[in-house]
């Protein structure tokens, strides 16, 4: 019965998990929101957010960790937290890039 569910309802696995609300042991694929949040954090780190936007970067990491904790039991809330983490990371990246631009601008002052 359980094995049948895996083979027959693989495509609907997420729906099964959501409707059964925690009573299903099938490991669902990692929601795309978490993957995207992780990628956004990596981009922010590469942009130098650890130096220029540590608050936003830490918020992103904390929310992603929350999302990972929530994942088996509360898929929807995990997705929301992951989306929030992604928003934090995008802000961290933009802040770091803006800081780089400002640094470059300051190097050019005073304008001759």
């Amino acid at each position, binding site marked *: 019965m359980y094995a049948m569910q895996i083979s027959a309802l693989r495509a609907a696995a997420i729906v099964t998990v959501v409707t059964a609300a925690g009573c299903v042991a099938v490991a669902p694929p990692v929601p795309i929101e978490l993957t995207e949040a992780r990628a956004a954090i990596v981009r922010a780190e590469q942009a130098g957010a650890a130096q220029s936007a540590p608050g936003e970067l830490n918020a992103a990491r904390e929310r992603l*960790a929350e999302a990972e904790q929530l994942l088996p039991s509360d898929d929807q809330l995990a997705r929301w937290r992951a989306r929030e983490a992604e928003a934090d990371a995008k*802000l961290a990246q*933009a802040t770091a*890039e803006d800081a780089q631009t400002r640094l470059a*601008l300051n190097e050019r002052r005073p304008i001759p």
Partner: protein
Amino acid sequence: MISTRKPLTISAACAVAAILSGCVTAPADNSLAEARAAVGSAAANPDVARYDALDLDTAQKQLANAESAAAGDAPDMAHHEAYLAIRTAKLAQVRADQVVAQQRIAVADGARAQAQLDARELAQLDARAQLDHLNTDPAPRSAMLVLTDDYFEPGAAQLTRPAAKILDDLAQFLIAHPERRVRIEGHSDASAGTDPALSLHRAEAVRMALVARGVDPVRSEALAYGPADPLTANENPADRHFIRGVEILLSDNHGQIASR
């Protein structure tokens, strides 16, 4: 919505999350007010409307979602959408600010490039004016012509095209006035990384250019000064393009070259 279907599970998870992350979850009504303020301030910034309308639009939609979730008694979703709206509104502000800074950089670079161009043109104009004066000078006197640093490829002895044109005219002048001799003096500065032999190489390049244009080699000589004897004082940055230049000293009708 799932949040309305199982509110107990989510609010319990929220509480756990708040403990885990050091209370990042604010009450929904507070975050909604904060989101309204953040989106309002981004929308009021003309730079945001001009340079990041896309993120502003997203923030406004997220705020609208938060408002309707709050009205529909879905506080968790309202809080989530409000949080996104706050972050996206801030994102729009930061990105717009960055575009403004990038534009300032472009203006600064443009002004600097123009200033460099002006100095270069001015320096080349000087040599041309000196040569014109030489050609129209009724009394043949000892004279001097300066090929500044701008007449050479950067850091090299190779002459640029404007320099070649000047030397065309100078060679013609020398061929027309066989009684005049020429001494070519190279200069260098004390700046680090400069090839100490560059001044000599440049002076010789000028001499060889004149020889190649038909000026008898015995009529010219090339020598160089070290960094201790620059063409102009090193300390004035405006004179920088004269440093590492080459002086071309012309004799009078009797082959006499005025000493510096």
